């Protein structure tokens, strides 16, 4: 099996609300620390791709509308890009 496919097929559980909130807080910290970069959204996405396990990225896409409404503008754009794959 292709390892990447394997990762996707295993990630079936829905993360808890507490865990989603924790991940969103982590994402916000990344966004805050990249805000001076020329393209903060791209920088954050690249950071997530290089350092975050796919489960964590997938968990972010499970954030519901109410949770996303609390996110910063940069984080919201990152989430949209993650949703789009």
């Amino acid at each position, binding site marked *: 099996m292709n390892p990447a496919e394997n*990762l996707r097929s*295993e990630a079936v559980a829905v993360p808890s609300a507490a865990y989603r909130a*924790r991940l969103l807080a982590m994402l916000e910290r990344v966004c805050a620390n990249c805000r001076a970069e020329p393209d903060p959204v791209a920088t954050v996405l690249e950071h997530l791709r290089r*350092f975050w396990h796919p489960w964590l990225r997938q968990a972010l896409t499970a954030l519901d509308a109410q949770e996303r409404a609390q996110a910063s503008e940069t984080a919201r754009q990152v989430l949209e890009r993650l949703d789009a794959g």
Partner: protein
Amino acid sequence: MRLCDDDLGTPARLGAATVRLTIDGRTVEAPEGTSLLRAAAQAGIRIPRLCASERLEPFGSCRLCLVQIEGGRGYPASCTTPVAEGMVVHTHTPRVTELRRGVMELYLSDHPLDCLTCSANGDCELQEMAALVGVRRIRYPAGGQKHAGMPVDGSNPYFAFDAEKCIVCARCVRACDEIQGSFALTVAGRGFAAAVTAGQGEGFLGSECVSCGACVQACPTAALMEKRVIEEGLPERAVVTTCAYCGVGCSFGVELKGEVPVRLVPDGRGRANEGHSCVKGRFAFGYATHPDRVRSPLVRGSIDEPWREVGWDEAIAHVATEFRRIQARYGREAIGAVASSRCTNEEVYLVQKLVRAAFGNNNIDNCARVCHSPTGYGLKRTFGESAGTQDFASVDHADVIMVIGANPTEAHPVFGARLKRRLRQGARLIVIDPRTTGLVHGPHVRAEYHLALRPGTNVALLNAMAHVIVTEGLVDESFVAQRCEADSFARWRAFIADPRHAPEAVEAETGVAAEQVRAAARRYASADNAAIYYGLGVTEHSQGATTVMAIANLAMATGNIGRPGVGVNPLRGQNNVQGACDMGAFPHELPGYRHVSDPVARAAFEAHWGVTISPEPGLRLPHMLAEAREGRFKGIYIQGEDLAQSEPDLEHVHAALEAMECVVVQDLFLNETARYAHVFLPGASFLEKDGTFTNAERRISRVRRAIPPLAGLEDWEITQRLAQAMGHSMAYSHPSEIMDEIARLTPQFSGVSYALLERLGSVQWPCNEEAPHGTPLMHRERFVRGEGSFVLTEYVPTSERPDGRRELLLTTGRVLAQYNVGTQTRRTANGVWCSADVLEIHPQDAEARGISEGDEVCIESRMGQTRLRARVSERVRPGMVFTTFHFPASKTNVLVTDGSDWATNCPEYKVVAVRVERVAGASA
């Protein structure tokens, strides 16, 4: 003579010119400034001596090394007489011999002549010199002995001082002054009544002595002697190996009697320590043979069942069966491992290989996650390599030394001693630390600037220093133009010049007076050679990686990279944490810091291992634990790390471990994490294995087996068996074969082999075709990444701030006598110096809370609470408290929050808002 000793009498002098002279009819060449004693020794001519040692400046007091120089007057001491061109020296004339015998007679007249029953019998320089000089009688009458009957000072748990056997050569006093810099010893009294004294006569334990052992090492008689040698007799053989405590990586001779380690003696040839040691490495090795060591594998069905002793085959088969079951049920990503930074490079390499090749994922991490992962991230991004830039010897060339968030005299004592020596020679010191460490005010050492910042504000302070450098014209424009990226520098210069980064603008945030910041910045930037040394006070923050990059920016902007005396130097905590990172025990990097998404790097490993490697990063340790609570991560193999005591937010950690279906702990002892384990695999101590460690200066040193593994297997053998049981073929017969594979697959290590290490003693990576003898200083001509990259270091305040309920900030650290979670040092006599964690609190804060010295206090954070005894101290600034985490009962890490570095998830150990209250009815 110590088994591992090879002393030429006085220090080497590296004069440019060579001097030619004649000694005892032989033509000898030596560098200008070399002593006659050393020049003769190098030529194989032995001159008797007692007060001289190559680790000490010449003293000329014993008068035993007298020589005759043609054309010269009298009989000068050869230790204090430098070589000169054309000099003709005689070392063994009848007159010289007569004089030496007279001197020796005087020594012996006040010495107990009990050689046959003396603990130094056969290891005594006085005995050896008396034989060499040929004394046959003592003309002085009995009754003149001034030191006879003086009491033995046995207060130190590791060594005794028997003044009766002391010849007052002052080697111990000079070793304490010159090598360790403690100035704890002196010669009190005059003439025949002169005697070595610790402190003001209160004995070694009560004095300022830090038990580094330099005095014991220097003593030529049995006056200062290890208690184990007194009790057990002299060792019979020695094995040279590398210390398993901190990241300094000291070389030691393990001296044994049969299979029993009797003493560890620092190796003068060891390049990291040059013959020096600390109380842990020198003396605290008893844990290795402590009765608590587990000697058989243990298995149990659930964590509330008792352990069952089993054989290795059953234990390994059980783990393999469980891990395969978990993966079959929950998926390939449901298991992972933590490699130990205490284990060898070869052992760590095998664990990450086990994970990638047998587990089929990248879920591998190591303790750098909770200490220096921000260093790896920050230095890779700015310089191109995840390691410090210098060797330790570089500090000898520094004119200004900036120590940030590090306490080397406690946590890296041997390097700390070297740093203090440089300060005594005149280097200026800047300390950035919320706490008044030993470097700020010490014997003959004083920080010119102590920037006692509020915890959590490192980035604001370093940005302010950079602002001063940029706006006051202190940038090394030439260095930046030649060595760094023009565009990233231009962006950074504009960013940092913004008035919001001015010292005055951040003064309220950092708590440091703007003028102090400006002065320190000017001092750093205007030095010929300015070096930065930093520790966990930089990395264990919500902006740990940003702080590392701010440090790198400062060094590049001022041109302090690429030559001796400068650089960016992380003081790494564990003996092999640098190596664990080098070996790819990270979820995102293969050995040699190559990202798992790099198809070329992956292909090399895939071809060699015969597997497919995932291109996606694995789970970091905190995410393994979080995913365990979420129910997706089910099994973990933990090699030599006590997660249940060392991680932050311990209640969460305990719950995560409880949630897993198979926890495998491989360790020396049943540690706190073993409470949650289903399988315990007994590991081997550093005395029981072959391999290599890599220290904080990238130095790869051999670890050599001195005694057989108490439980039968070295750690690499355990991992290999587990890999085999899980279906991945591993068939190494010796760690040298593992190193050969590392060299084949890792560019920075491609020139490393055990044969090379035997030849050179040690080597600093990169060691390859370009640098066959290693690389003491990195980034000399160009940065590893090509041009240095400036990163914008926006200050983002931590969310962990004092509030109405929790008014104080807790920060944590270590003390000299204990080590990390204390697994090793708690099982030694080091408890005599530190037997419990205490809470340091400023007198103002103590008074406001009715707290007195020794009171029991309750400390509460938003994560939990614990109780400690109070130590009222001005070492901490008002508004902050400090403690250590050496004892499980303290539960210090229960208090630490789930906050972490934004880039690496290194926990924010250094900033915890707490409420501190005196426990009613529990005064001291």
